[in-house]
Every structure is written in C-alpha cells, then in structure tokens.
C-alpha cells in the first residue's frame, strides 16, 4: 500500500518536478545575482517553500526593507494560502503526525493537486499527501540550489532577471482570467491598485489598495457570490 501510494504521488508530481526545477533554478540565479550564495538558497527553500514569496523576498533583502515591511508584504503576497487551507480542511482531516508538515508545504502547486485529485481505494491518502508534499519540497530545494550554483558561472550579465517575478504573476493572472467567467475581481484588483499607486505613491499604496479591494468585494458580494463559484486557480 505504501509502495502504491508513493508510485501514485510520484506520477502526479512529475509536472511539478519540471516546473519547480526550472522556477527554482531561475530563483537561485536571481539570488546569486543579488550577491546571496547558495547557503541562502538552501535556507530559504527549506524554511519558506514558496515561489512568489521567495522571489519577492530577494527584492526585500536586496533593498534592505525593514522587518515590518518584509513581514507585511509577505503576508499580502501569501494570504491566498489561507483560502487553500480552508478548502482542504476536510481532506487533511485525520492525517495525524504528518499534518503539520502537510500544512507547512501547502504551496500553490501541491494545493492544485491535492484539491482536485481523486484517489483509488488501495491508496492511503495520508501517505500519498505526505509523499507528494515531500517530493515537491525536494524538487524545489534542488532547483533553488542548482540555480544558485549555476549563477556563479553564468557567462552573461544577469541584469533584468528580476523580471521573473513579474512574469510569474502575469502568467498566474492570465491563467485565472482564462479559467474563469467572472473577471470583476481581477479588474477591481488592478484598477484599485493603479489608482492607489497614483494617489498614495510607490511607498504607501499597498495598504489602502488592500483595504479598498476587500471593501469593494464585500460591496459586490450579491453579484459575485454564487454557490457554484469555481475554486481559485492555482499557479
């Protein structure tokens, strides 16, 4: 049963392996280009295990942002995890000692699989989730460290590589846009933030934007709240 669970988890994790190795390598190269060695790649990929959070984190470290700013921005970027957890409350019930690690490793990609996968009866869900999470974590660490090592020998200038974070967020947005019929939340998010950026300036726009967006979404609840609303698409 354990062997079967591992086989299934490994099979399901293959697309994520490709993605994590590539994104991890990009991340490691970015980290190295800002002057942080592969020790940082190990530390961050082991303890944070978050694509967008780590990409943005390099920016906070390189710019010497305060701990408060760093923590607050990380909270905003990763608050979507909260809603992943909400939709997995049932599935992760009764996973025992593995549960804290499963929750710790709840990335967008792991979520996209555990939230949608249907397991056969001869597969132990608890072991399957644990294998899947640990495999994904190991791909991510491997990618990040590989990138940081490769970054030391890069034969060309890495100026502009920080566009990786922008490109990643754009891809997630396009993916969400194509997989949903309701575009109002995305439009509100962009429009409100642009207005706040112009009004409050690049230093202070995030907090007012966040509160305004939440208020607007509550205002449009009647229109947007449909019982059959689709789950948010993971990146």
């Amino acid at each position, binding site marked *: 049963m354990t062997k079967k669970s591992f086989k299934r988890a490994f099979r399901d994790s293959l697309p994520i392996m490709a*993605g994590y190795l590539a994104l991890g390598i*990009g991340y490691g190269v970015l980290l190295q280009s800002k002057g942080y060695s592969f020790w940082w790649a190990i530390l*961050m990929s082991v303890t*944070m295990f978050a694509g*967008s959070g780590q990409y943005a*984190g390099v920016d*906070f*470290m390189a710019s010497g942002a305060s701990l408060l700013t*760093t923590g607050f921005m*990380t*909270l*905003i*970027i*990763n*608050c979507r*995890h*909260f*809603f992943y*957890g*909400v939709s997995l409350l049932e599935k992760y019930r009764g996973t025992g000692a593995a549960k*804290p690690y499963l*929750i710790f490793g709840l990335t967008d990609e792991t979520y996209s699989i555990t939230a949608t996968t249907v397991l056969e009866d001869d597969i132990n869900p608890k072991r399957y989730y644990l294998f899947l999470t640990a495999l994904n974590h190991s791909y991510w660490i491997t990618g990040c460290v590989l990138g940081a090592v490769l970054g030391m020998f890069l034969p060309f*200038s*890495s*100026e*502009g*590589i920080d*566009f*990786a*974070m*922008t*490109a*990643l*967020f*754009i*891809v*997630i947005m*396009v*993916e*969400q846009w*194509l997989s949903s019929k309701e575009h109002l*939340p*995305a439009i*509100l*998010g*962009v429009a*409100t*933030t642009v207005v706040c*950026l112009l009004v409050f300036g*690049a230093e202070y726009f995030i907090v007012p934007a*966040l509160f305004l*967006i939440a208020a607007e*979404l509550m205002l449009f*609840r009647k229109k*947007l*709240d449909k019982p059959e*609303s689709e789950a*948010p*698409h993971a*990146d």
Partner: protein
Amino acid sequence: MQIDVHALLQVLVMAAVIAFTRFLPFLAFPEGRKTPRVITYLGGVLPYAIIGMLVVYCFKGVSVVSYPWGLPELIAGAFVVGMHVWLRNTLISVFGGVAVYMILVQLVF
C-alpha cells in the same frame, strides 16, 4: 565569512509569516466546525483581485514619463500575456518573458 544579520532576520520573518498563512485556517476552523460563508466567499474572489494587485506592484518602480518610458516592461509583459494565451505553458511564458526583458534592458534600451 560576514553574515548579513538583517537578511537572516528577514528570512526568519518571511518563513514565519508564510507558515502562519498556511496554518491559520486549520487553527481558526478546527476539525468538525463549519466555515463561515463570508470566508468561503472571500476565498473564491480574493485570489483573483490579489494577483491583479501584485501585477501592478511589480510595475511600481517603472517611470512612464522618462526614458525608456516603461517600454521594456510593456513589451516583455505583452509578450508574456501573448505567449501564455497562445501556449498556456507557464515555463515557456516565464522564461521567454525574462529573456525578452533581459535582451531589451541590456542591448536595446
């Protein structure tokens, strides 16, 4: 070896905050309790709005009134959108976009 203590603290803060965002739902709604409707509603719509906000956040340092008027970001951003609508392959879209952007800022502008 000189250790960057501030960066180390930043990593610890980020790791703690990320873990917090992942653990909170399981702590707030323990096994056997029903999740409030407003939370599931926000869970459905907020991720779309937040990603829109983050895309704008990525462009916050771009000046459209001085050279190169945000053109590298605009061109590379449009490239990413186009590639993704066409092929819907995350890796091609991200790495293609980064390559276009690097060429633009290093060789063109």
